[in-house]
């Protein structure tokens, strides 16, 4: 045991004023932002030191990268599953005199043509599954060809060989249906997953402090609002960093797989996604923290936070379902919980005017102010009440 003395700082001076001055050398009164920052710092460091967090973030980033790379490869090869393999019989000619193989070959890399000696050999290849279809001469259609397949008509081959009328679109959509769906999924998933993960993290962290009762020590030092602000700040920084990392990785992936055109088109949408996400997350985090403050055990987080989860989940599904419905998307792009997903999509599709994301952001900011005002009331009034779940009405009234 050392002979270190525990000395009360600044005691023994003449009265409280002298005591305060003497202690001032060792410590100073923290301002609320300073306190909040120390809390935020702890939240961040705790997460970064947690193996579970590091691993799950790494998996998320890998999934994003894999999605972009696979998407890139698929779009380069022109369809899922690579080129369609067909067999043709050497010497067969179509109605117009050109070889069927040559005709398909001219359609690009979508078909891989194997020439065989006769029809029997071609059929054998189809049966063995070595090719998707065989094309032979004959048949009484104008094309003068017969397509042989195993169990279902090969749509792409038939389409390639059919005589199609000329198509003129008066108002062509610049982006494809499939791509729109993928982008809706992409924005939606990133917002949904990140909001859920970090929303749960902040909820657990609130309940941990309540359950272990350290909150009483913390509240003897800083105010409940400062504590709440620090928690939201710390987790928002983490969530936003994760999203920025995911977006950066996605951009790099797009460049690497030659999708730089897509990246260029997505640019504005990506920036707005980042901005709206940052504020949207603050909203979600505030609600998660407030609802978690109502309970005292980790097991109860699920039930108490399910309304907040619904608020995040329902817009996510609405967007996935209505991704090609401009009216629904327009409404969703102003709803605070779906704005981070819907507004960037509309920007990408060219459906939103330049001022629309700004208005959406303003709506989001107003909802944050309201949510944090109510949320901090709930938090302040319930954080010291352990035991049974605190009723929401009591928490708001105080």
């Amino acid at each position: 045991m050392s002979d270190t003395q525990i000395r009360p700082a600044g005691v023994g001076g003449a009265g409280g004023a002298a005591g305060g001055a003497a202690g001032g050398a060792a410590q100073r009164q923290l301002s609320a932002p300073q306190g909040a920052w120390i809390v935020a710092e702890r939240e961040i460091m705790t997460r970064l030191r947690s193996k579970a967090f590091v691993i799950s973030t790494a998996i998320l980033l890998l999934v994003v990268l894999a999605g972009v790379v696979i998407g890139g490869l698929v779009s380069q090869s022109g369809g899922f599953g690579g080129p369609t393999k067909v067999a043709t019989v050497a010497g067969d000619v179509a109605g117009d005199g050109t070889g069927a193989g040559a005709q398909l070959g001219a359609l690009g890399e979508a078909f891989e043509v194997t020439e065989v000696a006769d029809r029997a050999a071609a059929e054998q290849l189809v049966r063995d599954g070595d090719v998707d279809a065989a094309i032979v001469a004959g048949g009484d259609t104008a094309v003068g060809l017969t397509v042989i397949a195993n169990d279902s008509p090969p749509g792409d081959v038939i389409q390639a060989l059919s005589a199609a009328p000329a198509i003129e679109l008066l108002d062509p959509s610049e982006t494809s249906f499939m791509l729109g769906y993928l982008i809706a999924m992409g924005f939606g998933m990133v917002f949904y997953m990140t909001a859920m993960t970090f929303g749960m993290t902040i909820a657990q962290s609130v309940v941990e402090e309540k359950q272990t009762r350290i909150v009483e020590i913390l509240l003897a030092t800083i105010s409940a609002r400062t504590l709440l602000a620090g928690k939201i700040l710390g987790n928002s920084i983490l969530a936003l960093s994760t999203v920025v990392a995911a977006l950066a990785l996605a951009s790099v992936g797009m460049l690497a797989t030659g999708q730089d055109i897509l990246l260029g088109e997505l640019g504005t949408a990506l920036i707005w996604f980042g901005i709206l996400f940052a504020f949207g997350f603050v909203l979600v985090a505030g609600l998660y923290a407030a609802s978690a403050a109502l309970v005292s055990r980790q097991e109860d987080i699920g039930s108490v936070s399910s309304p907040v989860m619904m608020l995040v989940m329902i817009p996510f599904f609405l967007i996935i379902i209505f991704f090609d419905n401009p009216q629904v998307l327009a409404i969703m792009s102003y709803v605070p919980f779906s704005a981070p997903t819907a507004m960037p999509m509309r920007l990408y599709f060219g459906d939103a005017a330049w001022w629309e994301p700004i208005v959406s952001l303003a709506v989001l900011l107003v909802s944050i102010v309201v949510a944090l005002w109510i949320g901090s009331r709930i938090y302040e009034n319930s954080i010291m009440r352990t035991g049974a779940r605190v009723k929401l009405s009591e928490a708001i009234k105080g």
Partner: protein
Amino acid sequence: MIEISGISRSFGDRLVLDDVSFGVEGGRMTGFVGANGAGKTTTMRILLGVLSADRGAVSLDGTELTAADRARFGYMPEERGLYPKMAVLDQLVYLGRLHGMSTGAARTSANELLVRLGLAERAGDTLESLSLGNQQRAQIAAALVHEPIALVLDEPFSGLDPMAVEVVLGVLQDFAANGAPVLFSSHQLDIVERLCDDVVVIGGGKIRAQGSREGLRAEHAGRVFELDLAGAAADAGWVREQPGVSVTHLDGGFARFEADSEAAAQAVLALAVQQESTAVRSFAPVTPSLAQIFQEVIR
């Protein structure tokens, strides 16, 4: 000196504290005793600003206590709590910084405390990996890390093994010896009796007694006397016949009685001395133990 004056607090329509007033003097250990639910924890929470009072005020050296003052108090809540998965040293540094210390100063202070409390080797371990007794020591360290100007400890000795009690006791006494006010609650009356300079007794939300330990004892000594007679056939039954005396306990040559006046008690003694068959072995006023005072004032 911390002064609590006229504090009342209700939860719903239940009045938990009713006009509570007492003082905690610098350089003295003040024990705060009361049954479970008497209002100790609520009083301490209000003192720390964790709860607000419906009425009343808390002052430090004559001026009303501010948030800045309170941030410099050391507090150990009744329900212990630190982060289970955080290293002991890290959380002490964190708490020190929240109290306004620089990281360096917080680290120095935390390390000193851990050495003092015999926890230095466990500084890097998570709290949950410590034994319960060591967790308690870490909890004490958490209350002291920011070099507080006053200490408020709710049941600091509950759950401590005898060795840890001595260690913690030493730390607290050093602390008080440096002039800071120390208030701690306990339901272990023997510990309070041994340690405290001053005692405050609370019951049913009201202050029932307060003062220095010796003062309280003298105040509650009353006129109870014990007479012990020696001899084979010693029988103190005659005391009952004496005027101005009521016997509360009688057992052969032993009698405990309450006297209306000092003179009545002296008369009993004189009579006892005169009796030829027996000798007086002892005659003394009864000084109540804290437990007895507690029983008496709580009723």
